[in-house]
């Protein structure tokens, strides 16, 4: 099995140089203007909170909501971790955007045959054994690429080594069932625009809960409806009764005639 890849983002090390965005834009051939909000041409951006910089990008969830909601399976989760989008399948319902708990997928609103856009975790680079362009470009090691298990261990070690510096939490470890992008920070996460009350279970479980009842609904519902029809539809029964009575009448009539 391929080891699950991840990136550890140590917010305390980020200096806000934007090298990740520059490298990403170059790697993906996007317009090189600097952007502060995720967009179809910015797969990663820096959000600033009082001098602290937070990199935002697709979290490449372990059990991704976008993959589960897409009616045509345009999103897929690859074995190594990247969550990828296929514009040739997409019908443009934007359920992925409505459902993503991190509000990541962006839409080409100005295109009349638009695509959904988001970070690709440099899947083609990973296949070649390279690390993502943004991780490579990061001058301080604030973004570090590696195996998810190793990076989780490392995150905990860094927190243990300097407990007075870090808040004791690895963000992304269990949010919506875990993500491939992990964060550690010295500022409480809720002050940095992170959603800290996300459920621990993967969101697809919530809809699956309803979807998995379909066979039962169909089976029980079908039998119920058919049964109700059978019981209420006494018309045929009455017709039979009628026929029987007529037959009996005929017979007794016949009897009488033969008697006389």
């Amino acid at each position: 099995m391929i080891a699950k890849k991840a990136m550890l983002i140590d917010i305390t090390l980020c200096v806000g140089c934007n090298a990740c965005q520059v490298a990403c834009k170059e790697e993906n051939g996007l317009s090189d203007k600097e952007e502060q909000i995720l967009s179809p041409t910015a797969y990663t951006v820096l959000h600033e909170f009082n001098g602290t910089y937070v990199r935002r990008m697709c979290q490449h969830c372990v059990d991704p909501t976008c993959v589960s909601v897409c009616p045509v399976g345009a999103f897929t989760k690859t074995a190594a971790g990247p969550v990828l989008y296929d514009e040739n399948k997409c019908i443009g319902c934007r359920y992925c955007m409505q459902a993503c708990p991190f509000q990541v997928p962006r839409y080409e609103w100005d295109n009349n045959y638009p695509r959904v856009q988001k970070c690709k975790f440099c899947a083609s680079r990973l296949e070649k054994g390279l690390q993502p362009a943004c991780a490579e470009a990061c001058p301080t090691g604030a973004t570090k690429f590696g195996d998810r298990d190793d990076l989780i261990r490392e995150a905990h070690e860094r927190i243990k080594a300097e407990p007075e510096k870090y808040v004791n939490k690895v963000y992304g470890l269990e949010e919506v069932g875990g993500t491939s992008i992990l964060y550690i920070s010295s500022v409480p996460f809720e002050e940095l625009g992170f959603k800290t009350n996300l459920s621990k279970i993967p969101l697809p479980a919530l809809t699956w809960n309803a979807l998995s009842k379909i066979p039962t609904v169909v089976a029980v519902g079908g039998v119920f409806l058919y049964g109700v029809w059978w019981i209420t539809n006494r018309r045929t029964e009455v017709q039979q009764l009628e026929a029987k009575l007529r037959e009996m009448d005929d017979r007794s009539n016949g009897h009488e005639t033969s008697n006389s």
Partner: protein
Amino acid sequence: MKQILSKITFWKATAGLIFTAGLYATYVRFVDGLGASTNLSDDFPWGLWVGFDVITGVGLAAGGFTLAAMVHVFNLKRFEPVVRPAILTAFLGYTLVILGLMYDLGRPLQIWHAIIMWNPRSVMFEVAWCVMLYTTVLALEFSPVVLEKFKLTKTIKFIKRITIPLVIVGVLLSTLHQSSLGSVYLIAPDKLYGLWYSPYLPFFFYISAIAVGCAMVIVESFLSARAFHRGLEMDILADIARVGVVMLGVYLSFKTVDLIERKALGLLFLPRYETYLYWLEMVVGVFGPMILLAQRKFRENHNGLFAGALMIVVGFIINRMNTSITGFEGWAGKGYFPSWMELAVTLSIVVFGFVAFALAVKYLPIFTHAEHEELSPPADEWAKDLQTVSQLR
């Protein structure tokens, strides 16, 4: 006479205006894209076209399966006269939903992908399939009306023969997707405001769809009675209203249990924008019509019945709009109001629906069911049977 004439011209002019605006909006939508024609954004990817044209539209068309079930499965043959208009509304409704979807989907030419590219984990996938199949069922259920016009008795006979399985399949498909439209939102527990998010969403959507299905049958009977100077089946409609009231009662009690279970009763009294809209939806769509229609003197009175049914419909629309739009505004941190082009398209679709309904009623045997006895005998034959049997006894 002059008055009537000016009235007709007024409505024609209004419809013409709406269609012109809708046509222009259509041009902008398909040439310049969604960004140019709508107020949608990355923070608000679903707006009026999903909320009203699809989510609300499917609900408003629920009368078709409700009435078909009552008459054909539960054998309440008394309701037979209103089945046809209900099926017609449903069929038109679903057609318009698909039309609306073509505007909203970013890549409408690939809509058929749902047929071959499967993702059974997706609620949307299930809804797509159910809507597809159910629209086919509705077309079949409605086909005798058209076939009668062309006197294709053989085909009609065949369709009559498969009526029961067809109706049962239709009811099952409707049960699935009416509730699944609620399941669509189960995925967003952190985004959808607590007054609307609930693990029972599928159930709420289902029950309210049945209630509004009943209400729609009443409303459209009234409107077509006025337009075509027909009489009204008051006793039947009043009984359908009763079914609606019972559904609202079930809805209300589960809504209450749900808020208690989630310890969310406090939300009912927070001084917030969502609170007011929630109360609006409940007062107009649930409390109001329940109080009104539970009383015989209103239920069996023309205006009372119409008002009650209309309230259910309006309340239902507010509920679906709240669930799909209002409930997300807090999370998105911004409001959404449709652009005039979004409104123009939606209004055009609605007007188009009215026109199509009117034309169908005018040219097809929709409300003239009694004259076609030889083709759909049940009600009277049943009575005759009973008579014979009791006589024989």
